[in-house]
C-alpha cells in the first residue's frame, strides 16, 4: 500500500457545483497531460532532423495525414491554453487575482486569449496554413 502524498489530493468532483473555474482548472490538467505526450513529438521531430533528409521527408509525409494534422492542431491549442492558464496560476501563487469575481473573469480572459492566439497562429503562419492543408 502506497503512503498518501504529502499534499491535498484532487477534490471529489461530485460534491461541488459545476463552475467555469472548475472546467478551466480541469482543462489546464488535460491540456498539460496532452502536451506531455506531445513533448515526445518534439523530441521525435528533432530526431528526424538528425536522421537526415530522407527520414525527415518520410516523417513529414506521415504527419501530413489529416489525423496527425489534427493531433498537431490540438497540440497548438493546448499550448496556448496551458500557457495563458499557467500564467494565471502563477499570478495566484503570487496571491494575485483571488478577490471577488477575479477568478471568474480572469478565466474568461484566459479562454479568449488562447482562442485568439490559436486562430492567429493557424491563419497567419506558413506552418498554420500547412496544418489547414492549404499547401
Amino acid at each position: 500500500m502506497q503512503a498518501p502524498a504529502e499534499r491535498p489530493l484532487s477534490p471529489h468532483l461530485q460534491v461541488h457545483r459545476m463552475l467555469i473555474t472548475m472546467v478551466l482548472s480541469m482543462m489546464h490538467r488535460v491540456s498539460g497531460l496532452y502536451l506531455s505526450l506531445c513533448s515526445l513529438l518534439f523530441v521525435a521531430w528533432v530526431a528526424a532532423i538528425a536522421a537526415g533528409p530522407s527520414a525527415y521527408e518520410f516523417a513529414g509525409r506521415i504527419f501530413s495525414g489529416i489525423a496527425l494534422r489534427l493531433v498537431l492542431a490540438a497540440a497548438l491549442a493546448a499550448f496556448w491554453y496551458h500557457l495563458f492558464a499557467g500564467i494565471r496560476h502563477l499570478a495566484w501563487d503570487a496571491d494575485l487575482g483571488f478577490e471577488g469575481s477575479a477568478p471568474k473573469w480572469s478565466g474568461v480572459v484566459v479562454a479568449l486569449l488562447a482562442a485568439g492566439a490559436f486562430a492567429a497562429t493557424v491563419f497567419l503562419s506558413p506552418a498554420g496554413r500547412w496544418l489547414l492543408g492549404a499547401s
Partner: protein
Amino acid sequence: MSRRRGAATRHWLNQRLTAVALVPLGLWFLIALLRQPALDYATVSTWLAKPLQALLAALLGAAMLWHSMLGVEVILEDYVHGKVFGVSLWLARFVHVAAAVALAWALYCVAGPGA
C-alpha cells in the same frame, strides 16, 4: 514510500520555476517555428544547426520534460493507487529520461562539432 522532508515543497517550487522558464522558451520556439517560410528539411535543419537555436532548443527540452514529469507525477498521485502507482511512476520517469537523452543526442547530431 514516505517522501523525504521538504520533498513536496521542492516539487511545488520546481514546477513553478520550470513554468516561469517555459513562458519565454515555449514562445520563442513556437513563434520561431511558425515564422519559418517552410518546414522542409533544408530550412529547419539550417535553422536548428545555429548554436543559439540549438542551445535554446536544449533548454526548452530540459525545462519542458522536467515540468512534464512533475505534472504527470501529480496526476498519477491523484488517480493511480496501490502497486500500480509505483510501476506507473517508474515508467513515466523512464520515458522522460529517455526522451531527454534522445533529444540531447539528436541536437548534438544536428548542431554538434561534426555536423
